[in-house]
């Protein structure tokens, strides 16, 4: 069978083997999408629950001051982006599941999935970058522009944010794998007609 495939290209692929392969690819696809959902929910929940109130020294004496994620626009963007990713992963895992049950999946589905996966990858990557950039200043401070570090005051807040950024990095990696898988599925089912 394999020799036949190599001689004639993928034009006459053995139907049984291809079907099994499709099932396997579809299974991996669904698992990755569920992982993406879990990662985005975890990132949002950890970020939203990062509130911490501490007594901090101010020019007018020590004061109780809270640190909340919505004090920084970068973190708001992060939460919105990861929420969108969560909703998107629910929709696409349902689509992927329903396509697994069909024997012949149209190539167009993978095409549409790939298109949107790339877009979502851009959103998640930029959100991770934004939160990471601000988080790094919070961790280290910047003496040149006199932005002082805050992570020595708000330990729990910073740990939550760091964990959330790590989880969203994982989500970005999952999205890269998903796009590669979509591309591979398209590549295997050439002549798409």
């Amino acid at each position, binding site marked *: 069978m394999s020799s036949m495939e190599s001689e004639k290209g993928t034009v006459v692929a053995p139907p049984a083997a291809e079907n099994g392969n499709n099932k396997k690819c579809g299974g991996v696809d669904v698992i990755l999408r569920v992982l993406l959902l879990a990662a985005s929910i975890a990132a949002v929940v950890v970020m939203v629950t990062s509130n911490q109130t501490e007594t901090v020294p101010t020019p007018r004496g020590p004061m109780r001051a809270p640190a909340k994620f919505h004090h920084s626009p*970068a973190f708001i963007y992060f939460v919105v982006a990861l929420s969108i990713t969560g909703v998107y992963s629910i929709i696409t895992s349902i689509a992927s599941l329903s396509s697994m049950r069909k024997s012949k999946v149209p190539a167009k589905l993978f095409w549409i999935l790939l298109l949107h996966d790339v877009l979502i990858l851009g959103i998640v*990557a930029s959100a991770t970058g934004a939160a990471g950039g601000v988080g790094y200043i919070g961790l280290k401070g910047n003496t040149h522009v*006199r932005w002082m570090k805050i992570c020595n005051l708000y330990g729990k807040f910073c740990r939550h944010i760091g964990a959330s950024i790590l989880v969203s990095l994982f989500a970005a990696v999952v999205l*890269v794998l998903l796009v590669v898988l979509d591309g591979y599925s398209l590549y295997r089912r050439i002549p798409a007609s």
Partner: protein
Amino acid sequence: MGNRNGGLDGTQRKEEKEGIKLSEIVLRVLALLLTLIAAILLGLNKQTKIVPIKISPDLPAFDVPVSAKTSYVSAFVYFVVANSIACAFAAVTLALALSGKGIIRLMIIIVDLMMVALLFSSIGAAGAVGLIGSNGNSHLRWNKVCNVYAKFCHQVTASLALSLLAAIAFLFLVILTASKLHKTP
């Protein structure tokens, strides 16, 4: 499919393929130039200003030169490095895309995808830090600095916009390469 419809369809498909190839080359050159300009624009960004600083109320103010540099902010350093990497990979894949077939195309998709992720994350990082620079953050008492370093901030903004265009070019490249996988046998 091509045989049944005769030669006309064949030439049409050929033209379409040529068109895709041409637009891919244009997009790659565009991405290369944009990332190059963005990296240089931010990499060489520096502004020195004379700012009067008062140490005590009864003494006259001192004129102190203060400077803003890209290397002072780690997010900007990351941005410059990411754009340089994307520029290098745009050049490599430009050479590969001219000769590439099947499996190489799949590899090119992966590289382009990495570049999309890298560029978008660097834009996010530099943009978020730049936003703090222009607006400040009153909760954390991080003061805005763009009122002092106006030219520096404008250059950062321009660099960000160029890099965003480059990232979108890479995004289109992924889609274009995928559409080639989709269409050609």
